[in-house]
């Protein structure tokens, strides 16, 4: 006699969500490696505050952090809207995520431009890990913005529904993870 529970197929939406969590687990390892390199640079060179941190603008970055945290709230509202069949609510909140994501990238571009103007380059002992770390995080935000635009555009062809919303759920997991990484970077790079 066959065991029906052992042979029952896993629903596709569950497997994609599982795949997203596996991906995020891998991303944790990736970002921990980059953060460790940055912290090692700080440990080896005790002049971090004088040489580098004095160039960073805490108010600007705090504002950027508020923007990304707010975008996470918009994201969770977008998912909640489509779970309840509210397509307009989903679209509006996703648009909010895109706008806030772009604002975050604008803030980062402003920060980088200011640092370059003050003579902080990629080749310095702190510049290299800093620009690598924040650059890779910024790339994740940029990919997230593109993903959100793809969802909004694709939604016109094949609308997400109350029953079929797992694409948005998976994007939400990615976006919140990017937010968590920034929460950690904000503390380790800018505040401590």
């Amino acid at each position: 006699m066959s065991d029906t529970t052992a042979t029952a197929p896993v629903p596709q939406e569950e497997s994609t969500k599982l795949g997203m969590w596996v991906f995020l687990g891998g991303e944790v390892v990736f970002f921990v490696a980059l953060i460790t390199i940055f912290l090692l640079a700080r440990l080896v060179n005790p002049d971090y505050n004088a040489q580098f941190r004095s160039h960073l603008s805490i108010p600007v970055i705090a504002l950027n952090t508020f923007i990304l945290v707010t975008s996470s709230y918009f994201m969770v509202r977008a998912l909640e809207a489509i779970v309840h069949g509210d397509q307009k609510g989903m679209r509006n909140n996703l648009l909010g995520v895109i706008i806030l994501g772009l604002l975050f990238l604008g803030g980062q571009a402003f920060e980088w431009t200011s640092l370059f103007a003050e003579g902080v380059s990629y080749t310095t002992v702190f510049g290299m890990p800093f620009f690598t770390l924040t650059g890779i995080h910024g790339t994740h935000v940029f990919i997230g913005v593109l993903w959100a635009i793809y969802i909004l555009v694709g939604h016109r062809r094949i609308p997400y529904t109350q029953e079929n919303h797992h694409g948005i759920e998976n994007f939400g997991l990615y976006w919140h993870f990017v937010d968590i990484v920034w929460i950690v970077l904000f503390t380790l790079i800018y505040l401590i």
Partner: protein
Amino acid sequence: MSHATTEKRTSYLGIFIILIVLTLIETLVSYVQNEAIKFPVLIGLSVIKAVLVLLYFMHLKFDSRIYTYLFVAGCVLAIPLILVMTIVMPRLAGH
């Protein structure tokens, strides 16, 4: 709108407000000169914020435990990586 929906929205809004307030506190604490106080407080606030996003916005509190295990597995796998980068590699490099 059902009672459950209203409750969930309130809960998301509550978490969002907590995250904003904690970020504000972090920013203010960063100006404190006493490193012995500043360091643990900022690390603690950062961990609380990350866990709140994981539990509520990413639904780990309500979803299957398998997702939590996968995420924790990533964190556990990072530990030997940190040890290699901070202990083994500097020794190999002769520091």
